[in-house]
């Protein structure tokens, strides 16, 4: 099979970005949107075709899918064995990611027609979407770690540009800046990790020679750990998660695409990409990553329970769900399909989560579009006004809560099974966090569609169902969410490439479903009615805790302290002062002292005969005295 057409998957979005970026301002909104969407349509078709051919072609003799590189050329040479290559790598996870990205991106392109209608900068918006899609696709098909870093930075910038899309809003500007700087800080770790990796492994490719890795000894865990710091930044792991909730200032479809489905899972993808080296040379780092994941998942779930801005709830739910994937990868104890179950589970969850979380965000977008507010207080009782949004949102909620037969159930079940296999403690903790997920998602669901309706606001401006351009993506993604759990995912992606049959672990499945149902019932009891005495009473009783959780346990304040106070006040300001008042003054002083001594000497060249006479006489006298003394 000839895969040379895959270059179009990258080139088309890039061309679309260039065309829309340069000529977009002179186009009509519809034309610009149509170009972007059409290009994405072609990319999606090509991605599906690639997946069809790739997985359809069958396995090679050793039972794995062959790794293919239709393109790989040397872009920037450093030394004889270190160079940055740009190319396309096709293997099970990259092909899987191609499907995820092109599907969600296409849906977002279509959706934005309705959502962004009449916005100023519509063309710019589509240009940035194309840029993002190009960068994200380039990231997943990277043939080496440096190519990944290149596109990693590019997705960071696209995210920056899209978060700051409404650039006249101060919050959006601040959020975009924060997102970029926090991830840049994390990327410093990534870069140093790459440098160590390149030096000791002797290559930037993903498959270094074994003896080099063995010779590297203790340095490989460092390299991989530092790389994960970069991944933790992009994937919003605690404590680098702080940029993601603020990133919700961007347009909602952007949140769906970048901050829910694709870019934020780049860190998970990175760990999956380096998985063979992780598991062979740094399993202990992998387990630390798992513990960090558990902490993040719990923290984010706790915060999500009390937020009132629907996009924030979804943002924290994203952080928590990504942490699930990270935990899944971290609890692997070996490379074979059984010990590496978590690998398959994490990738599976990445796939299903991308679909239902994009659905949730797009649904939230439709709601925000209808009520012109992000706050739950402006909502309530929306089910009668927006039936399609209501049903699709409910499907996504059931999926994320882990209720069969929706997709989230299957992937989450595999993750929990992998956790129990690693350690019962982790398994139980993750089960409880899964229960919290069900609780806060249904709190959100009831808060939006049931609960107390804000009649005053709704009388003033009756909420309406979204136009077809917006409801079609919702229905499509809902359909995907309903069926994607039945994909035999283990046949396509597994830790060592061998086929793996997903079999439900009855014990784990029953426990997790029970916990989810209890959580949903609890949420129904607390939030479905117009009056919510239990919830209010709980919030009043645990006031401090409630407040702390609402303020996200003050993580942002701590970060602000570090950046504003320490970097700005304690390092930069004194340094700038030192530069102006010490270094500069030293040179000014040199100049001044030259000047001053010249002034002194100048007095002698006064041009007055009398003073010359006196100086002459003094000199002569002194000379005489000297002669006499000698």
């Amino acid at each position, binding site marked *: 099979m000839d895969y040379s057409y895959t270059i179009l998957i990258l080139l088309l979005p890039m061309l679309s970005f260039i065309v829309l970026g340069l000529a977009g301002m002179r186009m009509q909104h519809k034309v610009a949107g149509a170009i972007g969407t059409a290009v994405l349509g072609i990319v999606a078709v090509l991605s599906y075709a690639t997946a069809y051919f790739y997985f359809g072609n069958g396995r090679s003799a050793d039972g794995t899918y062959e790794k293919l590189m239709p393109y790989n050329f*040397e*872009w*920037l*040479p*450093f*030394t004889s064995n*270190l160079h*940055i290559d740009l190319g396309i790598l096709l293997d099970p996870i990259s092909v899987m990611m191609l499907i995820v990205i092109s599907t969600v991106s296409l849906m977002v392109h279509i959706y934005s027609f309705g959502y962004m209608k009449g916005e100023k900068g519509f063309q710019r918006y589509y240009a940035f979407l194309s840029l993002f899609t190009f960068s994200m696709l380039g990231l997943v098909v990277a043939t080496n770690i*440096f190519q990944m*870093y*290149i*596109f990693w*930075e*590019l997705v960071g*910038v696209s995210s*920056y540009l899209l978060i*700051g899309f409404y*650039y*006249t809003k*101060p919050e959006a*500007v*601040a959020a*975009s*800046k924060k997102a*970029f*700087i926090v991830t*840049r*800080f994390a*990327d*410093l770790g990534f*870069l*140093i990790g790459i*440098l*160590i990796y*390149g*030096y000791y492994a002797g290559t930037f490719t993903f498959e270094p020679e074994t003896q080099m890795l063995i010779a590297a000894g203790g340095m490989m865990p460092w390299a991989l750990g530092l790389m994960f710091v970069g991944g933790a930044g992009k994937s919003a792991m605690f404590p680098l998660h702080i940029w993601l909730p603020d990133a919700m200032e961007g347009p909602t479809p952007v949140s769906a695409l970048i901050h829910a489905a694709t870019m934020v899972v780049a860190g998970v993808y990175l760990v999956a990409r380096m998985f063979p080296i992780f598991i062979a040379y740094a399993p202990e780092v992998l387990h630390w990553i798992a513990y960090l994941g558990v902490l993040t998942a719990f923290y984010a779930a706790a915060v999500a329970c009390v937020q009132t801005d629907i996009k924030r709830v979804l943002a924290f739910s994203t952080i928590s769900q990504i942490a699930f994937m990270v935990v899944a990868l971290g609890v692997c104890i070996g490379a074979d399909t059984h010990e590496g179950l978590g690998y398959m589970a994490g990738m599976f969850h990445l796939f299903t989560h991308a679909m239902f979380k994009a659905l949730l965000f797009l649904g939230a977008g439709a709601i925000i579009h209808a009520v012109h507010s992000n706050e739950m207080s402006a909502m309530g009782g929306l089910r009668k006004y927006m039936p399609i949004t209501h049903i699709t949102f409910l499907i996504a909620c059931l999926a994320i809560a882990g209720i069969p037969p929706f997709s989230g159930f299957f992937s989450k079940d595999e993750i929990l099974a992998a956790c129990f296999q690693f350690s019962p403690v982790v398994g139980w903790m993750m089960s409880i966090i899964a229960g919290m997920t069900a609780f806060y998602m249904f709190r959100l669901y009831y808060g939006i569609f049931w609960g107390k309706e804000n009649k005053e606001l709704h009388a003033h401006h009756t909420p309406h169902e979204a136009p077809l351009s917006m409801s079609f993506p919702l229905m499509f993604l809902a359909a995907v969410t309903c069926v994607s759990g039945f994909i035999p995912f283990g046949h396509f992606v597994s830790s060592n490439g061998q086929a793996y049959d997903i079999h439900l672990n009855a014990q784990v499945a029953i426990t997790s479903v029970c916990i989810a149902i209890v959580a949903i019932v609890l949420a129904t009891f607390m939030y479905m009615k117009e009056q919510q005495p239990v919830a209010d009473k709980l919030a009043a009783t645990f006031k401090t805790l409630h407040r702390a959780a609402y303020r996200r346990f003050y993580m942002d304040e701590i970060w602000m302290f570090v950046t504003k106070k320490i*970097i*700005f006040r304690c*390092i*930069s*300001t004194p*340094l*700038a002062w030192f*530069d102006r008042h010490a*270094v*500069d003054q*030293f*040179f000014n002083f040199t*100049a001044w002292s030259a000047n001053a001594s010249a002034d002194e000497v100048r007095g002698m060249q006064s041009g007055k005969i009398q003073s010359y006479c006196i100086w002459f006489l003094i000199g002569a006298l002194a000379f005489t005295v000297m002669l006499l003394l000698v």
Partner: protein
Amino acid sequence: MNILSFFVLIPLLMLLGLWLSRSLNQVRGVMVVGSSALLLLSIYLTIDYLGLRSAGATEEMLYTDSYMWYAPLHICYSIGVDGISVAMLLLSGIIVFTGTFASWKLKPLTKEYFLWFTLLSLGVFGFFISTDLFTMFMFYEVALIPMYLLIGVWGSGRKEYSAMKLTLMLMGASAFLLCGILGIYYGSGAQTMNVLEIAALHNIPLDLQRIFFPLTFLGFGVLGALFPFHTWSPDGHASAPTAVSMLHAGVLMKLGGYGCFRVAMYLMPEATQELGWIFLVLTTISVVYGAFSAVVQTDLKYINAYSSVSHCGLVLFALLMMTRTSCTGAILQMLSHGLMTALFFALIGMIYGRTHTRDIREMSGLMKIMPFLSVGYVIAGLANLGLPGLSGFIAEMTIFVGSFENADTFHRVCTIIACTSIVITAVYILRVVGKILFHTVKNPHHLELTDATWDERFAVICLIIAVAGLGMAPFWVSDMLHDSVNTILSAHLSILK
């Protein structure tokens, strides 16, 4: 006639033409024709050079030529170029060309301004083609003097102070440099001032090297904004008119790095190995110090000047790392920094020309008012913070990968400290972009301002194309530099063995 001599001849003819011209249009005509000729010549030279190399030319320098002009001291007008100088000539060609357009509407005394501007270019071009120590030094001085007048007469703010400070500090540095050059000449015992021949002799005694290496390195290093001798740069840049800032940060500061590499490190490898670490510490400080200082500045030009301290510090840092890759990275960084800083200063000049302020607290929402300039500014900012696809990224990555080849703790620590600058760069760039370009327009007077005119657009677009071109297709430059860097480093590598 040797093709390289045209780089001196064309500016000379331009000077003559400017002197004879009677009207503004004639002045502009001379400048456009002359600077285009220089640009085309440098592009032609690059292509021809690459052609000769691929045809198998293995000499260290090509297009060499030599005329004796002062026999008693063996001073020759010796010229020749290798990959590094070709890259620098190309950079100078682009910047002189775009600088002409960036000062299209400059008043008053346009003719005199362009006279000095051309003289400055003459010095720069002459420096990069010379292989004779004394001729090199002479061109260096030719480039310095016009700076004083250009800043002192056409500058803004505390221009007399800045012009004086800049000139005195650089003159002080060239005093060191002269000592260094004389030391090299007498120390080597060569009957020539030609760099190549002195390097081939390779017989400067170590105890003399210990004295003259620091003098030479410092002499050039001051021009490359080496901490703590960088303080001429913020004031100088802030006061200089737009095109002079462009030429100064874009090309003149590169003379420093180029000289350090070509003269100090090439001719005195033993002392470089022995004493290089002192300067390595200073450059590491430069990198971080410049970046942190830029974070709190409020004047656009000061921010950029400190950013230049940081980025030029990285050039010297990479040179002193003394691996093939890091030195190639240093030259790439000179190219990249030259282009993107020129772009930055051009844009700042254009914004200043409209708002009459460079204080970032007094501007906001410029994106709405002047979209072209603002987009240009964002691109320049992204190049500065090392976005892949623009020139900053390839240079920095080459430097870091190269520096990491030194496996001892001292070099590793320096490298990691220098790496942190990529985060701080992001902080100060995004701070400015957020403050002046985004938000709503606060100052109602700014609403009446207009976007860029054709000459400004032309200059900006040329520079953006160059920045993106280098960033997207770096392989040809890095191939061109590799062999030349190798020749210069060969003495170092043989010592290490």
